[in-house]
């Protein structure tokens, strides 16, 4: 009987697979990324390295000394004090304490603070409070402190926002009206992002994380890119990280362009180039997890996309490794066997500059 190895599915379910099954999944995940992204696949040696990481008999694994990278996050201290459907442990402590705990207990390399909701729109109404929070945390924290927010164009549409809802117009055949609604909403979002980041800059903000960009499709990504472009003029000493929502830009508008480049349908290798052109300092690549496929399949796919993205990038690339992206299973209590294997593989094979 063939030897089996404990691993998991994309939803975190523990399974035992044979070496042959794992190799088949690694190759299939690699091919899927290469075909979809029109990018080079991993070499046989890299697939062997990936196999060794996945089948490591230890519960957790880690990079070799000297291969460590920088960590950035999307409101990390928030998960200490919040109780949210997508994670958070709800400790009864203040955000200020959580920021310092993130520095001195979690030992992260940077801290990402943000509004509890994390979307741009609610943060705007509380901007003076957000500035105060940033200022207070910044006085006490030693390591770099970034403020993060999700553009989240979706909340600008009715009933949450003022603009006609594109997801209702398009199925009704009102394509032009749907596009116009997205263009108008994007302009409002650009204005809000510039306003929020500009205000925080006045309070001494060292870095701004545009997190989960393109969650509402190509117009959402367009708004983020335009805001980055303006902010690099208005706030030149504030670093900007552009983190993505997924590996593929949904064409909700389908024709919107940034600097004569159509955004719909972009994969990470193209996304990083437009982020760079806009002025981003760090790019946060995201690769979706398929919960019906195995962890080896998902991890190989993420590493393949990452390696190609790092190869064309002129700025640091930090793949997103939260729940349900870049190999980490879609489970609110992420299994550390998969989390640490994803870390090692993305850094040592994918050549990530950070996580």
């Amino acid at each position, binding site marked *: 009987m063939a030897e089996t190895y404990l691993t998991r599915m994309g939803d975190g379910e523990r399974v035992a697979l044979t070496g042959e099954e794992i190799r088949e999944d690694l190759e299939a995940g690699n091919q899927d990324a290469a075909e979809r992204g029109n990018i080079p696949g991993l070499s046989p040696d890299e697939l062997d390295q990936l196999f060794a990481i996945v089948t490591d008999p230890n519960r*957790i694994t*880690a*990079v070799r*000394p*000297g*291969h*460590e*990278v*920088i*960590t950035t996050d*999307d409101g*990390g201290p928030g*998960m*200490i004090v919040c109780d949210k459907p*997508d*994670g*958070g442990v709800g400790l009864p402590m203040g955000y200020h304490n959580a920021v310092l705990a*993130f*520095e*001195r207990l*979690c*030992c*992260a*390399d*940077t801290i990402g603070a943000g509004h509890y909701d994390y979307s741009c729109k609610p943060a705007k109404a509380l901007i003076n409070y957000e500035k105060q929070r940033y200022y207070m945390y*910044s*006085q*006490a924290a*030693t*390591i*770099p*402190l970034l403020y993060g927010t999700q553009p989240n164009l979706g909340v600008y549409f009715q009933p949450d926002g003022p603009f006609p809802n594109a997801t209702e117009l398009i199925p009704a055949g009102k394509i032009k009206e749907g596009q116009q609604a997205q263009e108008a909403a994007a302009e409002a979002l650009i204005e809000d992002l510039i306003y929020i980041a500009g205000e925080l800059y006045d309070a*001494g*903000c*060292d870095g701004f994380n545009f997190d989960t960009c393109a969650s509402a499709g190509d117009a959402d990504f367009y708004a983020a890119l335009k805001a980055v472009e303006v902010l690099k003029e208005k706030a030149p*000493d504030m*670093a900007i990280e552009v983190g993505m929502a997924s590996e593929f830009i949904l064409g909700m508008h389908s024709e919107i362009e940034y600097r004569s480049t159509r955004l719909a349908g972009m994969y990470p290798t193209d996304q990083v180039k437009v982020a760079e052109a806009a002025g981003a*300092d*760090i790019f946060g690549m995201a690769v979706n997890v398929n919960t019906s496929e195995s962890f080896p399949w998902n991890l190989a796919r993420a590493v393949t996309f990452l390696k190609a993205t790092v190869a064309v990038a*002129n*700025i*640091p690339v930090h793949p997103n*490794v*939260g*729940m349900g992206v870049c190999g*980490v299973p879609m489970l*609110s*209590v*992420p*299994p*550390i066997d998969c*989390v*640490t294997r994803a*870390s*090692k593989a993305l*850094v040592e094979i994918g050549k*990530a*500059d*950070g*996580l």
Partner: protein
Amino acid sequence: MGDPFGMTTAHVMAAGMCGIRTAGDLVAWMQLTRRLKIDEAKQYVAAKLGISVLDLSNEEVMQQIREELDIGIISGPADATKGVAARCRIAELLDISIHSVNVFKAKLNAPLKLNL
């Protein structure tokens, strides 16, 4: 996101530089202020500190360096420099411009005058 010990701490311990335990924040500043990729960022910081790239993540070496330079250490004694004061020293050490430091110094050094 996710629970901090399954997600953040696991990633940090598996592949992160571990912040002020070592030279993690210093290398991060080079990515944020100069857009340096990880190898270039590490080489820059190692050269400034006069140590090897390998020792940047060596707690035994970096704790002593951080203590001697007084740029913030993990144990945070009351009489040690931390927070924005430590960042002022880090900006000087790395020869970089840190926005929060510039804003802080601008307020600190603004002339004390009344326009009555």
